[in-house]
């Protein structure tokens, strides 16, 4: 098989993933040294559970983010609470049963919201808001009732509200991992379909895909991810662990598969580290701790990520303004000089700065240091190299004009790019030759 060389961005993504893994591993001794965490059996189970849940919700959460359904995740997680309570009343405190109850309640809420949207004129936010509040209210009322039953008060159902990872035991790990494998396998199997309906439902529908079915399948997987994560983050904060890894991952990459992998790694980091920190003291709730870690990842990604990050974009804006300032200053000088005789005519400083002020100064500085202009008292003059550069630029613009006019008649290749680039860098040599011939036939 031919191995394609990795692009700079791909390398960056894998480096980020490696960095997060290393950071996560380093956290273990640092945590021991700084917080005096003792890695007892319980803490290890909790950390492992947290990481696995983080992987699942991080991966599935990407789709919630991309479908603009982040708040849908919030509604669905709140809606799980009455399911937990009903399952407890019917079948007792077994975790599997409680989670199935949660899943059923959440899924009913999902279908109810779709039904409201399909049959009424309610907008999505209103439909989600009303379902979130009413399902959650029902859950709280049922929990209060359960607390009043003498035997049941110790059931610890409260942990579903804010999450309590310390309650995770070894047999839970098996359940979580099993469900996780199924969910991720389904994600891999239907990857193409999920990507298509997430990007363009209409096109998917016109191509004969059963959009409704695929949507339901994807939403069901998200519900499973939510339900599994409840022990960790609880119904109120679950949306955080669902969407934060996806939001952070989106900053680092422009490919869906990388985004999902990165979000899974971010999720594992937040889930694991958050769970360990909360194990320092039984009073630290896991959910909020995990969200704090996840939010830190989001902040760091938004600030630092190359491509989309704030630092990066402000740096790129600077580069752009430098490039255009230089281009414009060169053009201004050349045009003025030409219209006053020869390209080497000195150009008064007031004229150049008069048109472009700060940007002109920026451009002139660059031209000066590149040796394209020289100062003559209060005047600027293009050097030989400067005249050559300005001619090249003017000639490129001229070729662009001809390209626009005659490309069709001359059957030249179609271009995606446009005039701010040198046309000789984007058109093949023979096409340039044809355009050059045209300039000779039609001198300005």
């Amino acid at each position, binding site marked *: 098989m031919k191995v394609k060389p990795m*692009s700079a961005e791909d390398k960056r993504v894998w480096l980020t993933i490696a960095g997060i893994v290393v950071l996560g591993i380093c956290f273990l001794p640092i945590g021991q040294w700084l917080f005096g965490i003792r890695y007892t059996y319980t803490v290890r189970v909790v950390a492992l559970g947290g990481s696995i849940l983080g992987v699942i919700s991080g991966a599935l959460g990407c789709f919630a983010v*991309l479908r*603009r359904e982040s708040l849908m995740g919030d509604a669905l997680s709140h809606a799980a609470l009455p399911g937990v309570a009903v399952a407890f009343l019917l079948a007792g405190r077994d975790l599997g049963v409680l989670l199935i109850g949660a899943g059923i309640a959440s899924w009913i809420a999902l279908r109810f919201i779709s039904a409201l949207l399909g049959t009424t004129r309610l907008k999505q936010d209103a439909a989600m808001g009303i379902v979130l509040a009413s399902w959650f209210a029902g859950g709280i009322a049922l929990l209060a009732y359960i607390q009043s039953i003498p035997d049941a008060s110790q059931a610890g159902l409260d942990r579903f509200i804010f999450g309590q990872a310390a309650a995770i035991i070894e047999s839970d790990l098996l359940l979580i991992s099993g469900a996780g494998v199924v969910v991720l396998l389904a994600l891999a*199997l*239907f*990857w*193409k*379909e999920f*990507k*298509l309906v*997430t*990007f*363009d439902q*209409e*096109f*998917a*529908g*016109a*191509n*004969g*895909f059963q959009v409704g079915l695929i949507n339901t399948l994807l939403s069901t997987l998200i519900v499973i991810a939510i339900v599994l994560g409840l022990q960790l983050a609880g119904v109120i904060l679950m949306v955080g662990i669902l969407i934060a890894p996806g939001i952070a991952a*989106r900053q680092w*990459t*422009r*490919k*869906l598969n*990388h*985004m999902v992998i990165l979000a899974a790694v971010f999720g594992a980091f937040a889930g694991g580290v958050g769970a360990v920190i909360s194990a320092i003291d039984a009073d630290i709730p896991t959910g909020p701790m995990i969200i704090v870690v996840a939010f830190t990842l989001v902040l760091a990604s938004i600030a630092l990520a190359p491509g989309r990050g704030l630092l990066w974009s402000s740096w790129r804006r600077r580069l752009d303004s430098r490039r255009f300032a230089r281009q414009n200053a060169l053009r201004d000088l050349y045009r003025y000089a030409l219209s006053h005789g020869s390209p080497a005519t000195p150009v008064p400083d007031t004229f150049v700065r008069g048109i472009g002020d700060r940007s002109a100064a920026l451009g002139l500085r660059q031209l000066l240091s590149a040796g394209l202009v020289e100062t003559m008292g209060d005047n600027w003059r293009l050097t030989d190299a400067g005249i050559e550069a300005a001619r090249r630029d003017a000639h490129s613009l001229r070729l662009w004009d001809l390209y*626009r006019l005659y*490309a*069709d008649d001359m059957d030249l*290749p*179609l*271009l*995606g*790019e*446009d005039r701010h680039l040198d046309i000789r860098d*984007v058109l093949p040599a023979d096409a340039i030759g044809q355009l050059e011939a045209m300039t000779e036939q039609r001198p300005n």
Partner: protein
Amino acid sequence: MNDRAPLALSVEDLTVAYHSKPAIWDIDLGVPEGVLMAIVGPNGAGKSTLIKAVLNLIPRAAGTVSFYGSPYEQARSLVGYVPQRGSVDWDFPTSVLDVVTMGLYGKLGWLRRPRRKERDLALFALEQVGLLDLVDRQISQLSGGQQQRTFLARALVQDAQIYFMDEPFAAVDAITERAIVKILHQLKERGKTVLVVHHDLQTVEDYFDWVTLLNVEVVASGPAAEVFTPENLQKTYGGRVSYLHDGQVLAAGD
């Protein structure tokens, strides 16, 4: 209309209603194979609705549609679609090549992944629309015209018999407009049928040989030379001065 030519698309009594008000009403349409047809009409005339209803993307209140004599369910592989480019989120994390490859997902069916062959087909389509230098570009970095060409390439890889394009000429640059026109003519030469929602009355007769004038109902449908007349335009647009002016200019050029 020429009765001997097979009908690529035949629509009968098609009606779509929103809250009991028809968006399109009692549409009867026969489109012969191999024509380039413009669907023209004022805002709110139901042009996009017509396309979506024909493609089963929105529920119909009434009516039947057939492609080469078969219902949509059996003719899906014959149909290519270019949605309005505003209908998707262009910040979606994917590349131009990837979007174009999506045009082949329908043929691949469940569970199968695109491979080398699909990649080559997508590259070929991108070459036709002049985006070969942008294949790996993230779609959020495309201009409007480049987005439109990406969608066009995605439809081309479908290798359909009948294409539906929703406002492909809306707000695109000159190079893109040329590219689309070129593609339309290539499609016609290969015997494909193309239906295009179009808003620029000036270019209708240059680009298309068949016209349907639509304003909730079909005002007229047929060869451009017969149908695209000032009277029909007036019926369609309700005598709005600017359009009438265009219509008379066009009529004078006939």
